[in-house]
């Protein structure tokens, strides 16, 4: 009888506290779940969101750079190369040097200009520089002797020299007002200008990459200004005669004249 009563008491007590036990069990499950699932998941989510943010930034940068390269390839690169390579050729380009010199010599108001005189071996210079392993900017020195009609003409030629597409850099300038002889121009000015022009030997391993290429975007304004600099091809180089007034003619005027 006592055993039965005791069992009944235990059952009663269990019935009384079963709810609390269920809540405690659920609480433990909840805590375990929070510790083992929700906290790691939350941490993963935070990490993923940070990763997404970082990747979005990277993607935006890469997309912008890719678009810049596509645009560069399709439009401005060739133009930029043309301007920059004219100003600073990748080889000792004597042709543009002579064209620029002769173009300057044809300016109005100049009575006499000395013929271009390049130091012997100037064409050999590049080969020697490469053999010696030199890279970067190389200098070609020459001089220009000018007799200008007056001060204005002298000023104009100095101004023009500083604004040529092929870089002409004045290293030294001598301005002399000559002694006037009878019958001579009393306003003439003699100029002796020591000049340098440059060419560029490309280093074997030039560093390229996004940072360097993007640096070029800040140079666009300078390049567009450089584009306005003076060229003299039209003044110096005459059009090539094809010998035909009408290109559809079967014979040229030259051959017709020869016959």
């Amino acid at each position, binding site marked *: 009888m006592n055993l039965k009563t005791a069992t009944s008491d235990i059952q009663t007590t269990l*019935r009384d506290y079963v709810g609390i036990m269920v809540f405690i069990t659920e609480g433990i499950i909840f805590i375990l779940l929070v510790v083992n*699932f929700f906290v790691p998941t939350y941490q993963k989510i935070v990490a*993923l969101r940070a990763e997404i943010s970082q990747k979005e930034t990277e993607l935006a940068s*890469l997309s912008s*750079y890719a678009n810049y390269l596509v645009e560069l390839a399709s439009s401005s690169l060739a133009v930029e190369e043309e301007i920059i390579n004219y100003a600073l050729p990748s080889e000792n380009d004597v042709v543009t040097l002579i064209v620029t010199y002769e173009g300057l010599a044809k300016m109005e108001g100049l009575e006499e200009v000395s013929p271009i005189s390049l130091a012997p071996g100037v064409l050999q210079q590049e080969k020697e520089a490469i053999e010696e392993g030199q890279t970067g900017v190389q200098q070609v020195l020459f001089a220009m002797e000018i007799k200008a009609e007056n001060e204005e003409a002298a000023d104009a030629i100095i101004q023009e020299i500083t604004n040529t597409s092929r870089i002409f850099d004045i*290293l030294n300038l001598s*301005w002399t007002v000559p002694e006037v002889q009878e019958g001579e121009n009393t306003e003439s000015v003699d100029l002796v200008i020591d000049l340098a022009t440059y060419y*560029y030997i490309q280093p074997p391993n030039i560093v390229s990459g996004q940072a360097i290429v993007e640096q070029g975007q800040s140079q666009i304004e300078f390049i567009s200004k450089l584009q306005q*600099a003076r060229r003299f091809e039209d003044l110096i180089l005459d059009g090539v005669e094809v010998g035909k007034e009408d290109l559809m003619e079967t014979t040229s005027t030259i051959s017709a004249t020869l016959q």
Partner: protein
Amino acid sequence: MGLKINLLVNKKQKKRPAGRRAEGRTVLNVSVLFIILLLLGASGAYAYQFILTKEVELLDREIIDQKAVIASYNDVEERKSVLVAKTNEIQRIYNEKFDYLKAIEDAQQLFGFSIAIESISIEKTGVVSVEARKVSDITFSQEQAFATNIAEMNLTVIVPTSVELEDTIDTLLGFEGQGLSSVIVTSTSLTEEGEYAVVFSITFSSASPDTDQQNL
């Protein structure tokens, strides 16, 4: 004693069935609700994590695509890098250019046309050598003098008499002003024509930046 127990049991037995069922239902409902909430929370968290993972994968794919596009333009990248290097050099050359026209103008106007300049020689470093003949009393144009890109001027003044030589030296040595560092007499000599030449070394501290690059 036994009676008491029986009474208590009976009392409880009479009261508990309805209350216990209600309590049981409450416990069950709360437990079910709790489990549902846990399941919902867990599913939501897992789903959100899954979406984020997929987004990362998508971004990875897009990054790989963009890198492939960039790699396909490798030659453009290299050509542009050369251009950037060259443009830097050209900019450096232009920045180092000296404004010769300004130096000539300054040299001519420095003494307010009281000397007639016969020759000017200018070096890129800003050293200017001037040979001039005195034509009237030497005056010093302060406005022109102190805003110049000339760093140093070696001025040779030719005068016809020794009295004018002394006067010229006194006048030039007396010049003072902001931007003018010093005036020194370097030498005096008698020329072949019987005239006097005095060489001054004038240094300026106000050498202004070059302006040739403005031409571009």
